């Protein structure tokens, strides 16, 4: 009996306990949500053009003030914009890089080195049903720059939205039922922990006017991570294409229906009717899935592709070309109508003359907006114009950063001599000077001298042009950015055998393009590729096993590849590049 009483009282007490707890738990969770939102709001931007007409949203992603928004928000701003933050202050900002196809823009704020910034999440881990919240400046309500919060769930992920007009393709995007309205464009979509999972930019609008109808789309942050490096280059960046079209065949497989013979995919062996199994590390079952992966990759990346033919699987690495020609992209941008998404503010469908709700809600909004002002000095200092660039200043900045880091840890100003043992016995010796390059082997010597056309003799045979490649590598080291030829900073890209993304400089000298890959931390030259012609496979030279030496940190291994073949591996015993009173400046 006693036992029973005891158990009963325990049970009743637990119930009483359980009765009180849920409320507390709910309150706690609510308090946590409020705290998360309170912290998240600090990184959110209300973006206005300098003249104060229109605007959108954005989010800061680094303490030094780099921030993300939509291309269609930044476009009407031109080079300079003003960003209001939740602290009530307005910061000047300059455009850095734009991705018109992906509808992304990178801007940089000035005035602090400790900007509150959002943490980037892994948007591939987002699941349908996850709670999310959007922040931004819908209808430009936030005259005090306190962002508006809307709350919802992920309604769909890996959505593909066809290009609106000629640009603005939303691939692999997130769909949410959190309200996204005009003015939210460019603002962040946060997960329940307040981490950045996407940039809101598009919604399904229909006959109900330009207001939310429960289906809005955010560019996934993983797509933006791919593009962040190239956006920092200050360029107008383009998306990638495979050079092949894929459709679903009778069995529903994603099969190649068309392929360009000049494409790298074709040269690597992809043919009509091959079934694509995976691309960029993601399994592919439908044409839309391929479009989704392709849509999140920048032009110029090299990506693994797996395909099946007659039951056999093949793995290849494919260089991706651009969706648009360079001119085409610029023309399309110019042709674009005035951006529609952030502004004008929506009007009730049947009363187009009525003042917009934003103005209704806050009649003083207009007078509080910054008036037309001249470009601020700080923006002028961080902006330079060049065709094909959103802001060439940032390209120069990054060229110098990469080149200086390389030069700081290696002294390669003189003639280059690379000596090492051969497996077959004897030694190899490369000599690279201003006049050309040579390779001395026990049985044979190759001499290559600078002729009229760099791409004419690609010695040694089957290497794709190792000697001219080395000549160009040395030329970059010796002549520097200004005198090599035409050099630009591409951004970041993956490199075979290297984890993470690496910095890429592209140089063009006498009609030959060269890509130089640098370790973003150490500054080493990791690899170079020389393209004697854009429709030919390049000569690929990979440097590794860096060690401290007389001339700084130099590689002790050089691997040369061409097409699908390994040409040779050279173990470098001695790499002399030190200036011996030579003629290089």
């Amino acid at each position, binding site marked *: 009996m006693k036992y029973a009483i005891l158990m009963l009282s325990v049970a*009743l007490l*637990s*119930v009483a306990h359980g009765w009180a707890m849920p409320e507390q738990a709910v309150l706690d*969770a609510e308090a946590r949500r409020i705290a998360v939102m309170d912290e998240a709001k600090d990184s959110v931007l209300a973006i206005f053009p300098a003249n104060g007409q229109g605007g959108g949203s954005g989010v800061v992603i680094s303490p030094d003030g780099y921030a993300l928004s939509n291309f269609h928000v930044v476009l009407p701003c031109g080079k300079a914009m003003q960003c209001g933050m939740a602290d009530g202050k307005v910061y000047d900002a300059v455009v850095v890089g734009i991705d018109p196809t992906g509808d992304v823009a990178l801007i940089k704020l000035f005035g602090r080195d400790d900007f509150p910034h959002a943490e980037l999440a892994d948007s591939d881990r987002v699941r349908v*049903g*996850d709670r999310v919240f959007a922040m931004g400046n819908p209808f430009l309500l936030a005259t005090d720059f306190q962002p508006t919060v809307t709350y919802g769930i992920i309604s769909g992920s890996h*959505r593909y*939205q066809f290009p609106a007009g000629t640009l603005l393709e939303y691939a692999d995007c997130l769909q949410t039922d959190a309200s996204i309205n005009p003015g939210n464009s460019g603002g962040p979509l946060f997960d329940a922990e307040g981490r950045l999972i996407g940039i809101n930019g598009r919604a399904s609008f229909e006959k109900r006017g330009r207001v939310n109808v429960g289906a809005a789309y955010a560019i996934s942050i993983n797509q933006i991570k791919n593009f962040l490096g190239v956006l920092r280059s200050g360029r107008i960046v383009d998306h990638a294409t495979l050079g092949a079209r894929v459709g679903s065949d009778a069995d529903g497989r994603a099969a190649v229906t068309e392929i360009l013979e000049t494409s790298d995919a074709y040269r690597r062996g992809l043919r009509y009717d091959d079934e694509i199994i995976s691309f960029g590390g993601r399994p592919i079952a439908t044409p839309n899935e391929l479009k989704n992966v392709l849509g999140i990759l920048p032009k110029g990346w090299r990506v693994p592709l797996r395909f099946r033919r007659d039951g056999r699987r093949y793995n290849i690495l494919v260089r991706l070309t651009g969706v648009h020609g360079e001119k085409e992209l610029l023309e399309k941008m110019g042709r674009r109508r005035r951006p529609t998404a952030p502004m004008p503010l929506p009007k009730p469908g049947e009363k187009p003359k009525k003042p917009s709700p934003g103005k209704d809600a806050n009649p003083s909004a207009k007078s509080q907006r910054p008036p037309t002002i001249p470009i601020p000095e700080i923006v002028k200092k961080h902006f330079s114009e060049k065709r094909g660039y959103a802001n060439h200043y940032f390209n120069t900045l990054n060229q110098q950063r990469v080149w200086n880091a390389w030069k700081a840890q290696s002294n390669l100003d003189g003639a280059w001599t690379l000596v090492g043992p051969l497996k077959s016995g004897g030694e190899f010796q490369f000599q690279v000077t201003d006049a050309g390059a040579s390779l001395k082997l026990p049985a044979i010597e190759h001499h290559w001298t600078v002729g009229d056309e760099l791409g004419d003799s690609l010695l040694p045979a089957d290497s794709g042009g190792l000697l001219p490649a080395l000549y160009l590598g040395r030329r970059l080291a010796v002549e520097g950015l200004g005198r090599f030829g035409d050099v630009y900073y591409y951004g970041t890209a993956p490199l075979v055998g290297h984890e993470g993304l690496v910095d890429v400089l592209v140089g063009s000298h006498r009609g030959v393009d060269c890509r130089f890959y640098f370790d973003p931390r150490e500054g080493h030259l990791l690899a170079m590729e020389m393209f004697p012609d854009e429709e030919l496979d390049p000569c690929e030279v990979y440097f590794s096993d860096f060690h401290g030496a007389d001339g700084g940190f130099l590689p002790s291994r050089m691997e040369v590849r061409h097409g699908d073949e390994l040409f040779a591996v050279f173990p470098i015993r001695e790499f002399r590049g030190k200036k011996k009173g030579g003629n290089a400046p």
Partner: protein
Amino acid sequence: MKRAARKMRLLPKALAAFSGSGSHLPDPGSHALRGNPLVPALCVVSSDAERRGRCVPTRSMGMRGSTCFLLFSLLFASTPAVASISEVIDQTQPKMVKIYGAGGFRGMEAYQSGVLVSPNGDVLTAFSHVLDTDYITVVSADGRKFEAKLVGADPRLEVAVLKIDAAGLPFFNLEKAVDAEAGTRVLAFSNLFDVAIGSEPFSVQKGTVSVVSRLEARRGVFKTPYRGPVYVLDMTTNNPGAAGGALVTSRGDLAGILGKELRNALNNTWLNYAVPIEEIRRSVEEIQAGKFVAQRDSDDAKPRRSLDPASLGIVLIPDVLERTPPYVDHVRPGSPAEVLGVRPDDLIVLSGDRLIQSCKALAADLEYVDYEDEVRLTVLRGSELLEFTLKSDGERDTLKKRTP
């Protein structure tokens, strides 16, 4: 008892998980807090118990206490595991289908949503222009394409049943559908805007039933023949392509079917609503059973002399299409149709209980009606369905009128 106590300890955790963050959350308003009949019971009993908790030692083992306690144990033992939002979503997605048919321009999209309601490929959807074709395609959640047949439709409830040649697909059992009430947390599944193609999952939206109300179809305000109760929702569910989508509770039970888009002509607002399963279940079952809008048996004998529209005084619009909608072009003066009030531009939708989708279909149907018999035609006029019982005036017989 230990088990019960352990469950109690777990409870706060489970509830904490409800309310806000983390990735695989159950709905905060899901049944443990609201809507579940078990919970009000728990609340009442436990507050009761809280009071009594203090007097347990003196009252010793009162019968009420022990019953109470047993009740708790039973309650907890029988409470099914709380399904998280993502579990409900994962369970619901495979029961959904995408439907493609007639249409294809703005305002008349050629797609909508549907739910599987039998293991044999019966699809419940909204009766709309999309189904007005011989070529209806249904795409199952795994991306397979099926040719679908229109089994039947109830134009008054705006529901239709399609059949696809498939077996073993997951489905909603209409018998197990539940009622929702104001405050019930719900998820809406649909292929709004045709965002998803092939095997891509349906869009999911989360919201609450705002009110259960009759669809006051005041003439000219909302154009719909359906006037029964609807779940009015606080989320924008009724978009192009969403009609026929599923409204499920946070436990994953089917509660309703998303209705067609409805615009209030007076104030240009749109209504977001779902039709309760309860309202349509009988009709759907009859359609499935072949009782409703039944196809004629082929061995039905045609009468020697049969009716035709003209003998009723009805002249249809010229039959120029494969499926010309049977609109009344004009009504012969003095004819039974005119006397009873059939008007030009009326759309004939039913002959008896049979769905009529074209001029040819009406003519064919009337071939089975003896010219001396009366026929009951249902017409759509604006947003109203009207019934007329007509008889040929060949003999100038007396006419009857049945009010709708």
